[in-house]
C-alpha cells in the first residue's frame, strides 16, 4: 500500500480516500481468502499477487483523478490570465491594481496550501513567490551599506523560503513544481528584454512598449496551464509545460526587437529546460534518500 501511495501523487484528501478504499478492499479480500482455508501468509501473498504492480494500479488511479474539472482549470489559469490582463490593459501602472493582485495571489496561495494543496494552487504559488524575489532585487539597489544588509539577511532568508517551498512542492508531485516555476523563464526573458539593469532610467518606457506582448505571453501560459490541468497522462502534462516554455521564450525573442541576443535566448532555453525538468531528478533523489513524497 505504501508503494501505491508513493506513486499516487494526488492531493491529500483524494489520496486519503483512495488509500482507505483500497485498504478496505484488501482487508475484505484477505478475510475471504482466510475463510477459504488459506493461512495468513498465503492470503497476504495471494492478495499482493492479485493486486498486481502497485505502480500500475497507482498510475491507473492517478489518471482517473488527474483530470481537473473546468472550474479547477479556470482557477489554475487565472493568475496567468490576470497577469496578462495587467499588462494588456496597462493596469500595471496603477498601484491599486498591483496591490489587489498581490493580496489576491497571496490569499489564494495560502488558502490552497492549507486546503490539501490541489493542482490549481501551484500557479498561484509561483506568483506569490515573485514579490519575495522582487523585494530582494530592489534591496540590492539600496544605498551602499544597506545592500550588504539585504545580502546578509534578506537573501539567505528568501532563498531558504524558496528552497523549502520548492522541495515541499516536489514531494507532492514534481510536475506541480514545474507548473509553479513555469512563468519564471518568461519573466526573466522580459526582464532582460526591457533591460532594467542596463538602463534603469528608461525601463518604464520599454515596459509600456512591450506590455501588449507581455500580456500575450502570459495568455499563452494560461492556455498551457489549462491544457495541463485537463490532460490525464503525466508525460503529456510535462510535454505541454516544455512546449509552452519554448513558445513564450520565442515570443519574447521575437517581440523584443532584437534586445534579447541569440546567446541570451539559448541560455534562457537551457535554463527553462533545467528549471522545468530538474524537479523530476530532485524527486528521485528525495525518494532514494528515504523520504516520503507526500507530507
Amino acid at each position, binding site marked *: 500500500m505504501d508503494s501505491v501511495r508513493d506513486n499516487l501523487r494526488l492531493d491529500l484528501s483524494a489520496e486519503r*480516500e483512495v488509500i*482507505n478504499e483500497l485498504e478496505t478492499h484488501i482487508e475484505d479480500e484477505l478475510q475471504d481468502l482466510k475463510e477459504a482455508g488459506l493461512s495468513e501468509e498465503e492470503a497476504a501473498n495471494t492478495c499482493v499477487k492479485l493486486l498486481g504492480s502497485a505502480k500500475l494500479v497507482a498510475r491507473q*488511479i492517478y489518471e482517473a483523478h488527474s483530470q481537473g474539472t473546468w472550474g479547477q482549470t479556470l482557477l489554475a489559469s487565472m493568475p496567468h490570465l490576470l497577469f496578462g490582463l495587467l499588462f494588456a490593459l496597462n493596469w500595471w501602472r496603477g498601484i491599486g491594481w498591483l496591490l489587489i493582485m498581490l493580496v489576491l495571489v497571496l490569499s489564494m496561495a495560502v488558502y490552497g496550501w492549507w486546503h490539501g494543496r490541489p493542482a490549481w494552487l501551484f500557479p498561484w504559488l509561483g506568483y506569490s513567490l515573485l514579490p519575495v524575489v522582487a523585494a530582494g532585487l530592489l534591496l540590492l539597489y539600496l544605498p551602499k551599506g544597506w545592500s550588504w544588509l539585504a545580502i546578509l539577511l534578506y537573501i539567505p532568508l528568501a532563498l531558504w523560503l524558496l528552497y523549502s517551498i520548492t522541495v515541499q512542492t516536489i514531494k507532492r508531485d514534481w510536475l506541480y513544481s514545474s507548473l509553479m516555476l513555469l512563468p519564471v523563464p518568461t519573466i526573466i526573458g522580459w526582464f532582460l528584454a526591457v533591460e532594467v539593469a542596463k538602463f534603469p532610467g528608461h525601463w518604464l518606457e520599454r515596459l509600456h512598449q512591450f506590455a501588449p506582448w507581455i500580456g500575450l505571453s502570459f495568455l499563452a501560459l494560461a492556455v498551457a496551464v489549462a491544457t495541463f490541468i485537463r490532460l490525464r497522462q503525466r508525460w503529456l502534462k510535462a510535454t505541454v509545460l516544455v512546449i509552452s516554455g519554448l513558445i513564450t521564450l520565442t515570443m519574447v525573442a521575437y517581440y523584443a526587437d532584437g534586445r534579447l541576443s541569440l546567446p541570451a535566448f539559448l541560455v534562457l532555453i537551457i535554463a527553462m529546460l533545467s528549471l522545468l525538468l530538474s524537479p523530476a531528478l530532485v524527486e528521485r533523489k528525495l525518494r532514494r534518500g528515504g523520504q516520503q513524497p507526500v507530507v
Partner: protein
Amino acid sequence: MAKRGELMKGSTDSLLLCLIGQQPMYGYQIIKELDKRSQGYFKFKEGTLYPALRRVERAGLIVGKWQLLPSGQQRKYYHITDKGRYTLVEKRSQWQEFLVAMNLIIQPVRV
C-alpha cells in the same frame, strides 16, 4: 485475454451502472458480484475497477458515500443517481438493439 479486454473496454461503465442500479455496492462487492454473475467471465482488478468507478462518479451517474459499519470499519458504498438511472435505461435499450443486430449477423444462416 487481450481480445476479451477489448470487448470489455466499452462495457465497463454499463456493467457498473447496472450493478449499482440494483443496490448500493462497495468496490470489493462489485468485483465479487461481477465474477459470480458472469460465471467467472468478468474478472476486474483494482486498477480497472476504481478508475472506472471514479470515471462514472465524475460523470454524475453514481455517488460514493462512506458508511460506518457496526464493526467500526468504514466502507465506501456507491449509489446510483437520478442521472445514472436515466442513463441506465438508455444504455439498456442500446444494448438490446446492439445484441439483436449482432445476433442477426453472427448466428449462422439457416437454409
